[in-house]
């Protein structure tokens, strides 16, 4: 039985019976056949691992900055460097995963019986096992390859975790306060961003350093050193326009007034997620405001054909600053009401209609690249803004919002990236 099939059996077993003890026994069967020389992990040991890593509160083992991602220079990277990197990130990832597991264990008991949440919890236990196991010995290239394989599986397992988690929390609203939800999810998503970034980056570095890879000076792991926010915006706007066309029968537009030629070194997936969410909000607001304020006769002729009147474009301004880039999105979407302003940064606070609460399924078109965030619906999840902010703030940036109710909203995305690589 292949490794992946074993993992899947494990997960299914866990879903059917949410008791953690049975899961660990199953795991131990899997891991003893999977790992080459390592001892069998019993229930007690896994907890010890989690406990000891979660107690790691030194900054050395629990955080990293942008420079750490590019510290080895452009690929191909030497095996020694890769192994060193593997060892470092294993510590960081295990610390993160352990903390997440403990935080999940701190949730009210009843919530853990929700199948969505318990599914996530079991995935975390598995991930801890896999990362610990596969990286226990990291000395040769083969060790690294094995570790990389495990990382890929872990990343794949958690890919669609957010909608599942969101559903679980939405269903458990009576058991946990809004504030507790927000603080849990803030920490959870922050750690999640970090672990996924490190894992995927290491996998990418390894791939780019393998002898069969063609060297491309543009990419260092996941980092694109010549990322053009303007090009990204255009790509996203095109895709979102199609979605709008399907849903509303009209296409909003985006115009870049300043900063066409700006390039930065950043992680394209992150910026793509942020811009997608923000443009999605802007486009939706623009169209709905336009439909509200403009009588149908002005934008549709007698025969139902579109006339010249279209919604105002969303204006994007891109400016390279001393330590990063600022992207301003200015729309004419009617602004945000005072009462809503307080809630937009919380989780599960979507202004999408109640009937469309299954926004998880709405217009499930895949995003332009495989970001793995599970389909860009035109709203409903309520996680877009806080998650975008988590991405922006990960390396010290920010997202700010100012609204002129009755007119439109300005969003300022501040991304911190190094000057030159």
């Amino acid at each position, binding site marked *: 039985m292949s490794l992946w099939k074993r993992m899947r059996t494990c997960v299914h077993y866990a879903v059917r019976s949410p008791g953690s003890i049975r899961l660990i026994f199953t795991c131990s069967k899997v891991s003893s056949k999977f790992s080459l020389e390592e001892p069998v992990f019993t229930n007690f040991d896994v907890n010890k691992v989690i406990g000891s890593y979660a107690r790691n509160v030194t900054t050395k083992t629990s955080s990293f900055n942008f420079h750490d991602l590019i510290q080895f220079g452009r690929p191909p990277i030497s095996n020694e460097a890769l192994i060193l990197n593997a060892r470092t990130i294993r510590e960081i990832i295990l610390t993160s995963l352990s903390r997440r597991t403990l935080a999940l264990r701190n949730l009210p008991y009843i919530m853990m019986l929700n199948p969505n949440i318990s599914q996530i919890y079991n995935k975390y236990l598995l991930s801890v096992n896999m990362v610990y196991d596969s990286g226990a010995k990291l000395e040769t290239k083969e060790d690294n390859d094995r570790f990389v394989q495990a990382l890929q599986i872990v990343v794949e397992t958690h890919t669609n975790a957010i909608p599942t988690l969101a559903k679980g929390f939405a269903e458990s609203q009576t058991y946990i306060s809004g504030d507790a939800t927000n603080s849990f999810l803030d920490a959870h998503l922050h750690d999640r961003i970090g672990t996924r970034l490190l894992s995927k980056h290491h996998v990418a570095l390894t791939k780019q350093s393998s002898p069969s890879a063609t060297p491309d000076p543009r990419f260092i792991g996941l980092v694109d050193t010549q990322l053009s926010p303007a090009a990204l915006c255009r790509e996203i706007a095109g895709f979102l326009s199609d979605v709008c066309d399907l849903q509303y029968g009209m296409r909003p537009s985006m115009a870049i007034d300043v900063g066409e030629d700006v390039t930065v070194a950043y992680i394209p997936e992150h910026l793509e997620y942020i811009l997608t969410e923000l443009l999605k909000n802007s486009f939706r607001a623009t169209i709905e405001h336009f439909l509200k304020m403009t009588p149908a006769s002005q934008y549709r002729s007698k025969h139902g054909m579109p006339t010249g009147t279209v919604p105002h474009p969303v204006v994007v301004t891109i400016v390279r*600053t001393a330590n990063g880039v600022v992207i*301003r999105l200015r729309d004419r979407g009617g602004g945000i009401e005072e009462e809503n302003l307080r809630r937009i940064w919380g989780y599960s606070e979507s202004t999408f209609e109640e009937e469309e609460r299954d926004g998880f399924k709405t217009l499930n078109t895949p995003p332009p690249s495989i970001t793995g965030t599970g389909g860009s619906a035109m709203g409903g999840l309520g996680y877009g803004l806080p998650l975008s902010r988590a991405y922006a703030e990960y390396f010290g940036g920010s997202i700010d919002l*100012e609204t002129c*109710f*009755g007119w439109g909203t*300005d969003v300022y995305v501040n991304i911190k990236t190094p000057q030159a690589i």
Partner: protein
Amino acid sequence: MRSRSTLLYDQCRTCRCLPLSPYRARRPRSFAHRHGRTSVGERFNSSDMPPSTVSSRHFYQNETLLDYAARSAKPVSLRQLAFFGLKLTNEKIIQSANFVRQELPTRMAHRIHDMQSLPYSVVRNNHISSVYELYYHSFNTIRRFPVIKTLEDNGLFCDVLRELLTHHTAVIPHLVMGVIECSDLIDSKRMDRFMESMLRSRISRRVLTEQHIALTDAFLKDPTFQPSEQVGQVFFQCSAADVVRQCDALARSLTRSSYEDIPIPELVFEGDVSTKFAYVASHLRYIVGEILRNTFEASLERYQAIRILPAPVLVTISDAPQHVIFRFSDQAGGIPPEIIPYLWSFVKGPRSMIRHHNFEQVPALEAIVEELEASVGHATGQKKPISSLASLTTRSPTLRLGMGLPMSKIYAEFWGGKVAVKSIDGFGCDVFLHISKLGNESRFVQENNI
């Protein structure tokens, strides 16, 4: 313009003593006069504090002040302040007069008490101590005024109020100078809080006073008068775009007079340009003036560095249910990141900057005060008090106080609005100004504005 020495001989109407010119604090002791009483303080050789508040008697008499400070000021709703839709009668005027008679000393007592708690090193500063003395004198004056029972009493009371308004005209520049000079004597957050509470309290007291005087005048002129938004020249019907254009014209002419051949960006309007709303005209002019001044100043600096014609400033006006929202969007280069943490503080960043401001700005501010005092002297007979805010609004662009934003914030937030600044470093700034529409009968109560 009268010289400083002639001011010495004008008499204070309330008690016929010498005037409360703040400059008295700096004159030689022999000219000092304390309402016909001598005290231990007279023999106080150090030129630290002005005589009337330095005596030990002042310490022991503080009981009265503490009694007033212990009371809480009655929160005044906007309806009460503007007396919307009420029919005026004798009784209502007298009621209003007595309300003001009680509220003013209470609110002043809070501020005096605040000042008493400040470190000695701060209050011994000339400017702060003159404000302290002024407040204490005013507190006593109003406190001692007997209960108002007739319209004649009210007439006398209004005279006293007018006197008070004119005496307090120059308080803001004095506070500003004091803050600059004392910026390294006290924790900056504490100083910010002090300034904020002083200014907020001042706004509320002045509006209360001006409103009562205006109601009295209107009632005496025509007893069947129905109060409306126009009452008291306090709440004006403003046209949003017109106000901005007027402030723009003023700021532009001031800037041109100092920097002759440097291009100033034009304003381009969009949005609900014809919006009208009721507001305190002088406040709005000051705030918009400050915002435009900042933009022009930044534009000028940018032009001097890179000789490119400045892009026009986009002014967006939006008519929301409770607010009118202005957005000023410029491309004047943005705010340097080091300054951003200190944007809303009265006490600016690193010490070197403060000392620099200190010596550069104080002489110019003194000129404003002198002018104000001179105009006070001329205008004592008139009914309309002069506003120190207006004098700040028309100051020269070379006088950079570094307080435009924090002051604007206080004035905007007093009525439930807000000011926000978003800067894009190297590109430009967006300033968002939310102004509450005071014409509606908003239910909000200025509980914190005491």
